[in-house]
């Protein structure tokens, strides 16, 4: 499908023009933008905080034991968690939305990355939901982001290139297996079971429940990642099948995409 952008422009009446796009189709392949003209629209600063949970517990990194258990009764710990969130969007009941064009690379060992204060301000209004992309859409994934390049965040060209979406690593125990390493890395899904090989955009749009927000001043909210949800619902993950490496493993990449949408929740402050 070709990229195209259809602009439905309404008359320009005021100096204050805010661009909203109809966002029911969050794929970047199709974007229908509607220009809604409003007078004196106020805009406010957003502050987003990231929390990392394992079930209802706060994630503890680098524990010597393996305090967590996946749905497959495999106990594990976490030694690395880095992930990429992009294009946080605010949706209205009429289907329009406002998107913050930007991204945050969160590193669970670097608390300074837990707070994201985008430069873009968000127009006042009543929004029914907050959504965001996990990873990058196809266009962003082909762009140059110098800080991500320097952080060795690239995804190998032989696997379709672009950037990592996530690196989640640790050690696990399973029946008969002890202290085995897993590296749940996610990015473009290479399918080399077909000829010619295809490279599938593997990002997803998180659309957490209960994320309605009324913006009438500077505001903040929290994005919570429940690590257990990467490994269940709908697909019950088996570390013995998908430990490391999984970047070149098509099924693993697609299953992470399927498990992803329930990973996130949003807390409105």
């Amino acid at each position, binding site marked *: 499908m070709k990229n195209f952008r259809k602009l439905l422009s309404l008359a320009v009446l005021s100096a204050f023009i805010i661009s909203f796009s109809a966002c029911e189709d969050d794929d970047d392949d199709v974007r229908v933008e509607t220009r809604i003209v409003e007078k004196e629209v106020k805009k406010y600063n957003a502050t987003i905080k990231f929390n990392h949970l394992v079930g209802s517990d706060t994630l503890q990194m*680098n524990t010597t034991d393996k305090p967590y258990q996946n749905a497959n009764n495999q106990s594990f710990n976490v*030694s*690395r968690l880095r992930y990429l969130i992009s294009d946080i969007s605010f949706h209205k009941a009429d289907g329009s939305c406002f998107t913050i064009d930007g991204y945050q690379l969160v*590193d669970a*060992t*670097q608390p300074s990355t837990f707070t994201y204060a985008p430069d873009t301000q968000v127009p006042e209004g009543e929004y029914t939901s907050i959504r965001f992309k996990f990873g990058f859409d196809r266009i962003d994934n*082909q*762009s*140059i*982001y*110098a*800080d*991500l*390049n*320097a*952080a*060795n*965040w*690239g*995804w*190998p*060209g*032989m696997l379709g*290139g*672009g*950037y990592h979406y996530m690196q989640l*690593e*640790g050690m696990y125990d399973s029946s008969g297996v002890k202290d085995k*390493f897993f*590296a749940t*890395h996610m990015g473009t899904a290479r399918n080399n079971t077909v000829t010619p090989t295809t490279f599938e955009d593997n990002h997803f749009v998180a659309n957490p429940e209960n994320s309605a927000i009324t913006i009438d001043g500077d505001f903040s909210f929290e994005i919570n990642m429940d690590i257990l949800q990467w490994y269940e619902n709908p697909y019950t993950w088996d570390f013995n099948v998908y430990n*490391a*490496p999984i*970047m*070149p493993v098509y099924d693993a990449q697609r299953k992470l995409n399927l498990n992803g949408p329930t990973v996130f929740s949003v807390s409105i402050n």
Partner: protein
Amino acid sequence: MRFNWKHILIIIVFLAACREDDNSDIITKPKPSDTTTFGDPTPFNLVLPAHFILIPPPFIPDSNPLTVEGIALGKKLFFERKLSKNNSVSCASCHHPEQSFNDFGLAFSPGFNGQPSRKNAMPLFNLAFNSLGSHPNTFNWDGVAASLEKQALLPVKDPIEMGEDWRNVAIKLSQDPQYPMMFGRAFGSIDIDSTKIIKALAQFQRTLISGESRADNELKSQLNLPYTGQRLTAQELRGYQIYIDEFKGDCSHCHGLGLGGSQANPLWTDFGYRNNGLDANPDSGLAAATKNPSDLGKFKTPSLRNLVFTAPYMHDGRFNTLEQVVDFYIDSIQTNSPNIDGFMLKPRVLNSQERTDLVAFLKSITDSSFVNNPAFRP
């Protein structure tokens, strides 16, 4: 009275001021620290290879901007043996420009009295980009230097490396016929102290940019940028595929996708500190700087540039050849080492041809123009 250039220069400054200021009130004598005879130093713009657009700009601290005069002074100081106790060694004694500012194949370079130092000397290039990573602006294998300026404080007073007292260094340089004026031109006053010396050294070191090799040509070609010279051979390209293959070398998680097109990292490191599993009971590493037990055994991830000049390898120079390094990562990682990086725990299976190809590729990131650059010679 000891012969002291500083006093003579103060007199010169005084006389010059009188000549220029004949009508001024004779009571207002210039003070000894008067700086008016020195104009502002000339700002220096670092020229970067075109493909370094892929990474954030170099870090130049506001407190130490690059200037032509500061860099010239830093270069002279870099080759200055008076920085050591018996005037026997300079920075360049362990960091030779023709070796990519590394030593000639020594695991432990000798200090001012011939005693071996405790860590393998690191090559010096692209240091201005070391503001990135998990511990930004930290230097040395173990991260104990909190800035490039502060790094230079350490070897001078180290009892093995240069063994000198900073006050003695300042006195020796003050007695030199050239240094007082060079400090004046670079920093506005002829007074010499350790702060100015380390600033000048840092300025010179920030100009050491290495970004021209056949591997760089390959990346430029990917980006449709012009380049001169050769790209990679078929064998080297095979080696790069092994380098990025998660089932094989999986080198890129730490050293980056150097040939990754728009997502490439031409520095070949993220400047992170990692325990790569050399020893079951590792050296302290980053824990020496942070006092954090979870940093035990972690050392700075070195760039893969200019490896043909930087043997032997690792923080203690235990491997003489790149073949030994590759064999180590495939066959000999101590997986029970504390704080070992997860990337070290993936199985790596390479046959002998693949190992040869990987080494051939690593040798292709060799920047001859850097080691031959006359701007970096005394």
